[in-house]
């Protein structure tokens, strides 16, 4: 234990750098996954025929081994190559399912009477979405984003396999050196980051839950 802290202190500059890289990878990929996943989740509440294919594809995406995905991404222009871009694309692909699914579930779980009242008072579809469905679905959507983020912190360690840095660097180095301390220098900050993000997003989820709001 003391040995571990000594090691962490000795390598603090690297630990900090890779932690920042890791946060960057998770942050950018989660934001992109939300930017793609939420609209997709909304679209499949409007077009029932797309629901099966969209959820199916998002599901299959999650089962693609990361190295296979990287191999596929390396030759692609714009989104591929080696480095952060491919890693972020892979992380986005892995994060989509919980975000799309929870957006869809959150919206479809809105009380039918509430939706009926919204239509009956003359809201357009866009107004219903913006004023009624999204605010009511928000806690469920945030829960999906939370899952995606926490999983993302773990998965982002594979970014090191394609030269994108992050805490995975310690894990890959540690495995090749057969050195547990190095592995832990990556694994422990990643675990802490996952816990902190989970707790933080849980607070956001509670804050934005209309059922708890009092003014």
């Amino acid at each position, binding site marked *: 234990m003391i040995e571990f802290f000594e090691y962490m202190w000795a390598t603090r500059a690297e630990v900090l750098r890779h932690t920042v890289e890791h946060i960057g990878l998770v942050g950018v990929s989660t934001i992109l996954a939300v930017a793609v996943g939420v609209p997709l989740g909304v679209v499949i509440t409007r077009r029932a025929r797309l629901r099966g294919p969209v959820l199916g594809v998002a599901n299959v995406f999650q089962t693609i081994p990361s190295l296979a995905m990287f191999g596929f991404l390396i030759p692609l222009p714009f989104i591929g190559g080696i480095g952060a871009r491919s890693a972020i694309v892979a992380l986005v692909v892995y994060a989509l399912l919980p975000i799309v699914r929870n957006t869809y579930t959150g919206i479809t779980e809105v*009380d039918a*009477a*509430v939706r*009926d*009242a*919204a*239509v*009956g*008072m*003359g*809201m*357009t579809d866009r*107004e219903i979405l913006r*004023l*009624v469905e999204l*605010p*009511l679905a928000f806690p469920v959507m945030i829960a999906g984003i939370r899952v995606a983020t926490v999983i993302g912190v773990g998965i982002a360690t594979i970014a090191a396999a394609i030269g994108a840095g992050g805490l995975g660097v310690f894990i890959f180095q540690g495995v090749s050196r057969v050195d547990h301390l190095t592995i832990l220098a990556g694994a422990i900050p990643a675990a802490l980051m996952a816990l902190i993000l989970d707790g933080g997003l849980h607070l956001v989820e509670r804050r934005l839950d*209309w*059922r708890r*709001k*009092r*003014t």
Partner: protein
Amino acid sequence: MSAVSFEAVSFSYNGKAVLGPLSLSVPAGQTLVLLGQSGSGKTTALRLVNAMLVPTSGDVMVLGKRVKEWNPVALRRSVGYMIQDVGLFPHMNVERNIGIVPQLLGWETARTAERVRALLGLLRLDRSLATRLPHELSGGQRQRVGVARALAADPPILLCDEPFGALDPFTRAELQLEFRQLVAELEKTVLFVTHDVREAVHLGDRVALLDRGALEFSGTLDEFQQSTDPAVSALREYL
């Protein structure tokens, strides 16, 4: 002149006839009660008025214009709508719920706020309730908010689908009385769906009795009270 009229309107769903052909009109400023058991087609008739459903044949006229010629959104914003489960937006406080249609219509904030205050007074809701969420209100308060919301943009027509159905008898009687006075005072045209004969008699200027999609009886309250139609007289037993 009639505010709403049904002209040989029928509606079928999945090839099954649900309503009609129905011909019926509601004079401006009057309350028509659509009375019938569940499955009689009364809710269907109501939803044809604000284009939530589209007739299979025939035409519904609202304010002298065919519903199919109205822009559905514009039509719905000129017609107040109240349903049994109230359908208050659970994430919006009372003030925002009442002010939602004015907001959609693009009213200025100050004008909306003024209107909300007036409606709270009209519906005898305490000002302190303005910032409460619906789940913090009693059933009767929720329903008053529902009425206030339907009246917010001062629509000439109100559509009510058993709005008081879930209330306890006491609150219900109180609200019926107030509602009757309110719509008379504001000269609203009201289509009111209920399965409760007493409610029909309390609220209606006119009564239309629907049975399995067909119009069994239509007339003024007096005509309803005196009708020798066996179906009507059987219903009067409940009074």
